[in-house]
């Protein structure tokens, strides 16, 4: 039971990270109907920018609490801005000229962009994994079991709390942004019918660009959380995280924001429980099989709308 509880905590944490990345996939897919294959790499870029800023500011575990929180918020904002610029550029360079081209063109271009971003980071920052000394230490003891096999402590670390709370706050802000502002209204309009939205005076190109920027900002948050949680990143983290987050977006119902978060949680839980109870080696297989199963049996996802085929 205690073991289960611990895995549940870990799964929710991991799921929050996947959910944050999945938002970028689901928004972009919703609005222009393409898979931004480079999104995982934007997450990686966000992670690297966070790392660089943390090192530049000299944040360590010994920094006092208030300063630490403020510094982390600063890091978060900087990472969001830079990741936003990256994704904006990616959209301008690789996707916008291809609008109206044949269906596979943007996807192939996105794969090229993904390779470009990975290789660019590998060359600029070298291929070695970058370890970061833990910044946020400690945590609560939730439950404890003592028996003849030894003691098993269920812990809820501060970093896990930070991750889940930040995710919740940002999700709330984000939902408000989509439902209450004119930008969100424009986005939803474009999602429903791009041409009609354009006829009604919405700057579609600008809306799409902003969608990419917002998705990237969420991915950058996930990047910082990933860095703080695992303490080590390299140029290749975007690929696996990207595919899993995409799975989460599909599972939740592509185009649906709460769906992306829910899908992220489910994928995180599946991965953690699979590693805990079956085998760690095959955890990626579990996530990938999940993707195939969902697409085959539940293509509209948990919270998505079924797609109507028009002739």
């Amino acid at each position, binding site marked *: 039971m205690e073991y289960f509880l611990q895995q549940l905590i870990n799964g929710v944490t991991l799921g929050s990270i996947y959910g944050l990345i999945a938002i970028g996939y689901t928004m972009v897919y919703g609005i222009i109907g393409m898979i931004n294959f480079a999104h995982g790499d934007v997450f990686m870029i966000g992670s690297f920018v966070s790392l660089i800023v943390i090192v530049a500011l000299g944040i360590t575990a010994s920094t006092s609490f208030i300063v630490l929180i403020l510094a982390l918020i600063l890091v978060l904002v900087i990472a969001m801005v830079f990741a936003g610029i990256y994704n904006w550029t990616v959209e301008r360079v690789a996707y916008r*000229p291809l609008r109206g081209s044949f269906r596979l063109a943007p996807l*192939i271009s996105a794969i090229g962009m993904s390779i470009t971003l990975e290789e660019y980071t590998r060359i600029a920052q070298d291929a070695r994994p970058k370890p970061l000394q833990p910044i946020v230490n400690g945590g609560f003891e939730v439950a404890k079991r003592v028996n003849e096999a030894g003691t098993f402590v269920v812990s809820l670390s501060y970093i896990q709390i930070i991750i889940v709370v930040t995710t919740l706050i940002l999700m709330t802000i984000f939902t408000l942004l989509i439902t209450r502002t004119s930008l969100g209204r424009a986005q939803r309009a474009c999602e429903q019918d791009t041409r009609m939205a354009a006829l009604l005076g919405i700057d579609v190109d600008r809306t799409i660009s902003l969608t990419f920027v917002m998705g990237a900002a969420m991915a950058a948050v996930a990047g910082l959380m990933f860095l703080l949680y695992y303490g080590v990143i390299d140029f290749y983290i975007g690929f696996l995280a990207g595919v899993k987050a995409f799975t989460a977006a599909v599972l939740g119902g592509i185009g649906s924001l709460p769906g992306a978060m829910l899908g992220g949680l489910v994928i995180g839980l599946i991965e953690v429980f699979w590693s805990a109870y079956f085998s760690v080696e095959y955890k990626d297989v579990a996530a990938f099989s999940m993707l195939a199963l969902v697409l085959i049996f539940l293509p509209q996802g948990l919270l998505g709308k079924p797609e109507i085929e028009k002739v």
Partner: protein
Amino acid sequence: MAEKAQNTAHAGNDVGAILKDCVFASLIALAIFAPIIGLKTESAPGGLILNQRWGAVFIATAIIFFGRLALHILFWSRAGETKKKASAASRLGTKLEPLIPFIGVAMFTAAVILPWLPSTDRYILDLGTLILTYMMLGWGLNIVVGLAGLLDLGYVAFYAVGAYSYALISTSVFPMILPHWMMAWAFWLALPMAGMLAACWGLILGFPVLRLRGDYLAIVTLAFGEIIRVVLTNWISLTNGPNGIPGIPRPSFFGIEFTRGDNGFAHTFGLQYASIQRIIFLYYVILALALFTNFFTMRLRRLPIGRAWEALREDEIACRSLGINTTNTKLTAFAMGAMFGGFAGAFFATRQGFISPESFVFMESALVLAIVVLGGLGSNIGVAISSVVMIGGFELFRNLDFLKQVFGPDFDPSQYRMLIFGMAMVLIMVWRPRGLMTRRNPTIFLKEKKAVSGDLVAQGRG
């Protein structure tokens, strides 16, 4: 904002607007390059430290500034003529059209006589073999992506299945069941099996994903490719895990092995023993396999199944309305493509003599896909040209040592080849989404044969 600037630049060639746009682009570039290039994280005893490299950022930003300026001056200033230019390009394509069979014949002749040219050494032969392997993979993938319009990002899975099938059959199964003298035939016996097993995997993987639309299919095939690789890495009792399978039998000249002894190839044919004989033989084996793939695909295109593939690519709903069994059509495309991937994999295993899961990463799939895309989806001659360009280009990066004199001894050009590869993929899509060969050969026509521009076919609306 940039676009507005660009538009005004188009309209009046306004120098101020162009400069404004270039400055804006370089500001963005500065923001992009500053953190990742400018501040390099290095491991130090106390943790990470930052190594500042503002010179590199400045150079990169300057490249963007002048690159954009050059684009403005050379291309965008004549925005009004873009349309005309495009049609001029397609006119050029129609002019070149009669030459295409000659290009094919020339490439074929060059490929056949290559080992006998005086300047050919082992290095060139190895490169030729590599190019032909990718050409074969490209032709195999072309069936799935180019003809049937199903984007397969996990093609390397079938390559891996072929390689591992051959490796396992020839190292574990054959020694138990075959008499010793037949072991020399191992490659020729196992090759069809590897192809068939890969085709079976094509069916197994293809079956559940057939209902998916284009880009979903792409992601699922990518996931399958990764699953196969993870299984190969972790199923240690079968595949020896990351350590790979060593000692895979080399192919024989139809039973005569390339050894120094009395039964060897050299002695049998009264030649001096030389290790290059095996290399030349391997070269011809892959040439024959690749040509077989090409011939097979070209013939299939003229069969009902080939027509059904192309019809499926153009419009799936229309296909269904006309009574074409889309499930079977897609499955055969998957299985055929997989089979050729399997053949190529078996060849790869026998050529290397050693395989490990590391050879079957996603990047290989992306590379083969890039070859198909660059060549022009659906065009076999385009795939041939683009595999020469692509693999040859990769190899060129190894030989750019003179750049070391320009950029200093630490500069390693081969580091940049994947970066260039990724950027090339984006640029090809942006500038020439139909690839090098945009002309389409109509498979069926009324009265006269007319060339179809690639812009008129809906590629890959799977």
